[in-house]
């Protein structure tokens, strides 16, 4: 299959690749961000966005605008584009596109379960869910009392069902359990997605394995940092790392025993691609790590567009749009709260 994509790819995927590249051209550029950062209030942001592809989605919003409205409408645009692409897609691209949303599905499940645990209103929680990760019976999640029920009642119908095989316990749900569940699910999801991409072969496998490895490694680092000082045992921690990626397997062994952030840093600096990320931070600091990872991710995602005839552009586009929405949210929040000096703290320029 490898090397012959140019011959057959356009039969099924050509139209959608053109669409997604067209969408990518609509991503906000650095000059857009510069203009946005100069805005005085949310109406200015709306005015600037109305000249971009977000225009039609924001034009009917009444004037005292909220950050949530902006984010909601921008997400709506992403969802509309995604749904359009999904409608047009044929196998295996449609499965690939569906895989992209599973991450959001996991997040939504965790959100609802945690929310019900803390006695929140289900409908309120549903509004907070990411629309890409919605499934039919998501509201029913509130009924479940433990993992087993969760699986048997609701999730068995969803694509997440196979990922659950590792975390079915009869234990009652609590915060720790849920977090472990999230990471176990994510691990299973990433591994499954990775296998799927390998099966597709060609440039898709090559580029996606790079992107997914990065994702897996980032999760491994985050799990390690977040679990420092908790009662999670080393073995349990080790179990949450995905079984692929640049760190697998030796890096994982080392990460599993880390006790503080500097040890993590020591482990990661052995890997050249991550050296530059950690080199930017001073010792003992972990706040800027997220941004550094995001920047690295955006760089890699942009590179995915350099090659043609593969599916990774869809993944890259969705991720870039999500990053853009995060940027917009941050900028809008900063503008709304008059914290304009902090605007650049978390904005990741895409181009």
């Amino acid at each position: 299959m490898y090397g012959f994509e140019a011959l057959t790819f356009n039969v099924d995927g050509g139209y959608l690749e053109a669409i997604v590249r067209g969408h990518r051209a609509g991503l906000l550029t650095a000059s857009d961000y510069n203009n946005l950062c100069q805005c005085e209030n949310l109406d200015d942001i709306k005015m600037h966005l109305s000249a971009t592809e977000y225009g039609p989605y924001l034009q009917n919003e009444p004037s005292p605008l909220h950050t949530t409205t902006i984010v909601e409408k921008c997400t709506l645009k992403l969802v509309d584009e995604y749904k359009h692409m999904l409608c047009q897609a044929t196998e295996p691209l449609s499965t690939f596109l569906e895989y992209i949303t599973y991450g959001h599905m996991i997040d939504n499940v965790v959100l609802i379960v945690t929310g019900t645990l803390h006695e929140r209103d289900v409908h309120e929680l549903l509004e907070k869910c990411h629309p890409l990760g919605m499934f039919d019976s998501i509201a029913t999640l509130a009924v479940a009392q433990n993992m087993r029920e969760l699986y048997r009642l609701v999730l068995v119908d969803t694509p997440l069902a196979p990922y659950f095989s590792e975390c079915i316990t009869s234990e009652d749900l609590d915060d720790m359990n849920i977090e472990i569940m999230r990471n176990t699910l994510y691990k299973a999801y990433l591994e499954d997605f990775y296998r799927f991409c390998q099966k597709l072969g060609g440039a898709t496998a090559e580029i996606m394995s790079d992107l997914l490895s990065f994702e897996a490694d980032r999760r491994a680092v985050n799990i390690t940092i977040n679990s420092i000082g908790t009662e999670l045992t080393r073995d349990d921690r080790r179990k949450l790392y995905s079984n692929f990626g640049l760190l697998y397997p030796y890096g994982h062994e080392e990460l599993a025993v880390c006790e503080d952030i500097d040890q993590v840093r020591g482990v990661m600096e052995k890997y050249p691609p991550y050296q530059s990320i950690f080199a930017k931070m001073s010792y003992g600091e972990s706040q800027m790590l997220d941004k550094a990872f995001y920047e690295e991710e955006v760089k890699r995602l942009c590179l995915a567009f350099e090659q043609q005839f593969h599916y990774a552009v869809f993944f890259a586009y969705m991720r870039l749009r999500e990053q853009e929405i995060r940027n917009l949210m941050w900028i809008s929040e900063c503008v709304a709260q008059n914290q304009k000096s902090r605007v650049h703290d978390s904005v990741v320029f895409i181009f």
Partner: protein
Amino acid sequence: MEKFIENLPPMDLMRSEKMTLVQLIIPAESSHRAVSYLGELGLLQFRDLNADKSPFQRTFANQVKRCAEMSRKLRFIKDQISKANLLSSMRPVMQPDIELEELEIQLAEHEHELIEMNSNSEKLRQSYNELLEFKIVLQKAGDFLVSSGSHAVSERELDENVYSNNDYVETSSLIEQEMRPGRPDQSGLRFISGIICKSKALRFERMLFRATRGNMLFNQAPADEDIVDPVSRETVEKTVFVVFFSGEQARTKILKICEAFGANCYPVPEDITKQRQITREVSLRLSDLETTLDAGIRHRNKALTSIGMHLVKWMNMVRREKAVYDTLNMLNFDVTKKCLVGEGWCPIFAKAQIQAALQRATFDSSSQVGIIFHTMDAVESPPTYFRTNKFTNAFQEIVDAYGVAGYQEANPTVYTVITFPFLFAVMFGDWGHGICLLLGALVLLARESKLSTQKLGSFMEMLFGGRYVLLLMSLFSIYCGLIYNEFFSVPYHIFGGSAYKCRDTTCKDAYTVGLVKYQDAYPFGVDPSWRGSRSELPFLNSLKMKMSILLGVVQMNLGIILSYFNARFFSSSLDIRYQFVPQVIFLNSLFGYLSLLIIIKWCTGSQADLYHVMIYMFLSPTDNLGENQLFWGQRPLQIILLLLALIAVPWMLFPKPFILKRLHTERFQGRAYGILGTSEMDLDVEPDSARQHHEEFNFSEVFVHQMIHSIEFVLGAVSNTASYLRLWALSLAHSELSTVFYEKVLLLAWGYDNIVIRLVGLAVFAFATAFILLMMETLSAFLHALRLHWVEFQNKFYHGDGYKFRPFSFASLTEDED
């Protein structure tokens, strides 16, 4: 000659309007009025002097935002009106002009009112829906309970007073009433009844089954009435369900699932008398609610209609305001911040009108200071503006689609008006089809006033826009069709009898030996006797082919002559001497000569082989022509022409770039300090004005450019002439196609004595004529005519590197712009 050309009256469309760059200095207090008067006039194109500023940093960003907000409200109201199925009244109500501020307040009020009414009616509808659902549940679930009543020991009891003492609004709390915990001491079978969307019913049942591990009984029945969703106002099909279960835990689970699925639960009393009583009460309250709802809707509709009367006017007004502020945003504040400075292009003839409008604005806003309006000189090329009318507009569009003419460049539209439909008709020559097209064009013209006001689909709009093109195309088709003597491929003796007749009265050798000529030639067009003869095709092909070449050479010559007029107009004698002259010589010594031969051959009826003449003119020009000689002195003439053509090629290639180089060096000789001077001059130049710098002279670039042009012309002379043969090819294809449909479909079907076959044949013929000959062929002939104009004709002289004049005008604001 020079004199004669000088004295020609100026052609209207030949050159675009003379434009001038003007500067306006408008006192701030009269700026708004001045700009809106200019918008009404629509003859001034503003230049954006703030291109580097983002939209919200401009001076009038706030006003633009307010306008956008108002148009949002107007859109909301319009949306409401169309949702309520009210027609926004077409007759605009005469009403004194209101100020924008007032409108803003009014709009805010209206919007607020509407939103309030909507939320009220939504609440009402919600409770109405609940009652309706309750009624349906009572009916349906009652049936289940009766049928299963003998087994089910239901412990549900309802307090009657719940339903009797409160008014209908409180019934929205029905769900809560139902959710009161059941009495814990009771066990056994219980039930929950409710209603759910039909699409969710299956999944709901499955979920219930799983949650209760199968310990439940699910009954469902479709609701008879559709429920209208209060938010989206769409009707939803619903299903009534009754779940029987046992145990308290199952009950909480089921209730949670009900909530998750958005199923509304309603209690149904076991007792039939109670059921009847509640049903009665519910129905009573339903009818109450209905009247309230109706009254609400009537009230709302009334409000909407009263707004709807002004809606169109308001929308127009807001659109105009927004356009005015957008334009004001393009102006600069001067140093004192009291005046706005604007620059723009206007046609020279409009200066007086603009000045008058500005004076009016000063007067109306009772400003102390007048508006200063003066012309500036510009380096940048002005926009191109042709004053077209509804007839010439479509043709101008055809030319503009290729490229907008440079400022004051010769406009091919002048000739395209006639040549385009004519070349189309050469390919589409059939007066039957022409009449069909003419009828279509006439229908469009007759309904012109009606169609021009309404919104058309994209296809219809295209057709309507080109209605005059269509008219001319059809007229010329009829003309060419008469020349070709084709009417749906049937020949007619319109202009007298044929010049040929059979040799004897039996006419039996007409198709073997041939006919004899017995009278003068058929007076107009092709003799109908050619039809069906063995030599029909060779005769028509030769005729059409030669005609195509003649037309092509004439049109290409016209193009070259236009390049002469361009060169004269821009007084570039270089172009005349080293481009126009050799081009004329080259084209005419080869293909002009061919045209001459064709005409001589037609006049003399000679048998000479023109291919042979042309080919051997190149291969062996000195050879004797033999029987192909058409006139005395042909051989020396050919040699001279060939030599001329050979000379013409280097003539158009070499001199021009070298002369340009010499001129350039001469200009800078003795001006060694020239460059320093310019940098000082740059300081004087106003920062934002249209002045530019000197162009650099790059000899190799100029030379390569000239080489490309020369090669293109030399090769193009051959390929373009050949390209005109498409006139013949398309015309042949058209006549052959119509012959096929006529003979192989219509005549074949007519041969049978069966009415069905005849009808089918007629139908096929009609469809083929309409869709293939009238639509597809029209389209293809149109495209080929387009190509001949764009490529073969216009590349001889047309640069098309200008940009269109887009004046700021209220008339050009369209509805979908906001």
